[in-house]
């Protein structure tokens, strides 16, 4: 759905009964905290809003916000299971009607956006309000390459940022997420990310996606080491998809596309990033990791990769169906435990870098990045038959 009216109009939908809004702030530095609180003060000038923060703050430092303490949390670039567990706990304790979870850089969000998120969950029937950020080109590539297309193809949700760090949750959404978090914590994976979109779709809750516009600084992982973070995120998503197999293997209708209200970007005047190192990694991986890939990928994909490995940098283009099938095959291999999961996801990284190189080439030739990513997501949808058939009959003798 499109942006809502910034003014706090109560729409035709009913307001959630009782309680007030609980805003849970993530662990952040004092400067970020100040900005966030100032922002909140601007967003909610009138009504009282309960703010919980893991950093110690006096209760009345920012009227009219009422500040309570939240359980201690580790600074993280994404919402973890522990965060959702404490959100539900706090909401329960303080009898909140809805929860707004804000990440470290929420000080950069427009107050109207925060308000919109809050309103969405305060009025039923929306259970999950997800922001749609406007990021600079070539940012959030893992999301564009893997997270968004997979979520869209399998869970029929057009949410552009499934791993958004700012979320609006209704009480029952928080309860459900807290249950999922509890399961993860029992497995000592309290710091792993959760997938709210997947949970909401399986439970049949309503999801609302809101444009929050604006370029904003996205929290980055502490050590931006692709080799550790990508396996973590992808592995977590793969496990989640595995657990919900009975759900997504049914025919689903995708909601209609949103009208993108964002102004089309002026063509970036920056020079296109250098793809040579990525290609080098891919070619190195092709010669060294080919045996591992041949355990996971079928002959047609291997042939496509072989062709790519001999293509020069200028013509380097990974076809969207090839990428879709690669991700699906890795998803299946993750489930079947063909090789150790850590090794499997480590072997995915060079392929992901090859996709990034191809994406950069495409955008450098003038095509809008968003339309390419939409094409990628469409390819994932088209290959859904592929993953369902291979999931149900994992035979080695296939095209």
């Amino acid at each position, binding site marked *: 759905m499109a942006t809502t009216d910034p003014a706090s109009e109560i729409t035709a939908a009913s307001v959630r009964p009782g309680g007030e809004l609980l805003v849970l702030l993530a662990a952040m530095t004092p400067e970020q905290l100040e900005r966030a609180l100032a922002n909140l003060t601007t967003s909610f000038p009138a009504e009282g809003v309960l703010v919980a923060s893991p950093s110690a703050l006096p209760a009345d430092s920012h009227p009219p916000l009422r500040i309570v303490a939240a359980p201690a949390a580790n600074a993280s670039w994404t919402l973890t299971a522990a965060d959702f567990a404490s959100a539900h706990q706090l909401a329960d304790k303080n009898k909140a009607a809805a929860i707004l979870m804000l990440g470290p850089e929420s000080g950069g969000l427009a107050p109207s956006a925060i308000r919109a998120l809050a309103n969405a969950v305060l009025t039923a029937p929306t259970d999950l309000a997800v922001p749609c950020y406007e990021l600079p080109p070539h940012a959030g590539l893992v*999301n564009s390459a893997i997270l968004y297309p997979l979520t869209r193809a399998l869970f029929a949700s057009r949410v552009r940022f499934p791993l958004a760090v700012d979320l609006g949750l209704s009480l029952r959404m928080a309860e459900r997420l807290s249950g999922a978090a509890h399961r993860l914590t029992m497995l000592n994976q309290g710091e792993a990310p959760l997938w709210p979109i997947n949970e909401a779709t399986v439970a049949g809750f309503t999801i609302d996606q809101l444009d929050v516009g604006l370029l904003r600084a996205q929290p980055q992982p502490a050590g931006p080491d692709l080799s550790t973070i990508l396996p973590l995120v992808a592995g977590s998503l793969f496990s989640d998809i595995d657990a919900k197999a009975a759900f997504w293997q049914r025919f689903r209708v995708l909601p209609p596309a949103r009208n993108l209200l964002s102004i089309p970007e002026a063509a970036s005047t920056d020079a296109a990033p250098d793809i040579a190192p990525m290609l080098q990694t891919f070619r190195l991986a092709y010669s060294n990791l080919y045996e591992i890939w041949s355990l996971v990928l079928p002959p047609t994909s291997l042939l496509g990769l072989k062709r790519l490995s001999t293509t020069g940098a200028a013509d380097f283009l990974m076809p969207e169906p090839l990428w879709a099938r690669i991700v699906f095959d890795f998803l299946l291999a993750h489930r079947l435990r063909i090789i150790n999961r850590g090794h499997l996801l*480590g072997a995915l990284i060079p392929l992901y870098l090859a996709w990034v190189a191809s994406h950069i080439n495409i955008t450098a030739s003038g095509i809008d990045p968003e339309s390419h990513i939409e094409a990628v997501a469409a390819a994932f949808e088209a290959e859904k038959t592929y993953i369902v058939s291979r999931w149900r009959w994992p035979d080695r003798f296939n095209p």
Partner: protein
Amino acid sequence: MQNMLAVLLQSSPNQSSQPLYADNTSIWAHMSGALHQSLYRVLSLLISILPGILAFLLALAVFTLFGMGVSALLRRGLALIRFDEHLSRTRGNIDWAPSTSPTALIARVSFWGFVLLGLIIGVSAFDASYATATMLPSSLLPYLTRIVGAALLLIAGTLVARFLARSVLIGAVNEQLQYARFLSLGIKWLVLVLTAAMVLDHLQMGGNVVALAFGILFGGIVLTLALAVGLGSRDLVSRSLESRGEHSGERSATPPTAGPGDSIRHF
């Protein structure tokens, strides 16, 4: 034979040669006496060992049967209480992939445990009944356990070597190290050599010579690997030094203007 010789002696008319014949009889007597004695010794040794062997076999057989019974009972019992499902419900996805269910594993382990127990008891029974002679070295039991331990070490070492080799291969490729395959092979052989050395040491074979040889081999491999890492990771090191400098700069300043190389953000 002695009788024949005695007859010969008595029938011999030549008395002067009697002392010679008398020496011969004693030599023959000594020889046959020695043979008899050794035969007696060996036979008695065998006889003394025999009950030990029988005891060993009996203990092994009894405990194997016992083990079969216990494992069957366990299997049935665990299947009845649905142990597998209970386990998967509480523990969820554990990242290990046994090819059989926990029930089967437990049953199997218990069976082999009993067989092992029978083996141990049998061997020590054999030891106990085998009284004196010092032909065999000190008791068999510790050596058998050593062999078992060595075998386990070997298996574990091989598995670890393979796992590590693959981890290193993937890690090195992701770090753009040119010698990735070489490194992975090196690590694998390093671990295998180490395992072999540990196994031989555990079996107390070779002693110092083996230790020295492996030490040299080990050192050689480590040196080669160090060279490979050093040569291959010059870029890596320089990159990591640069990025560390950037990071410390970034934290204090506002987000810097994006240069062409920085404009990719994976997250």
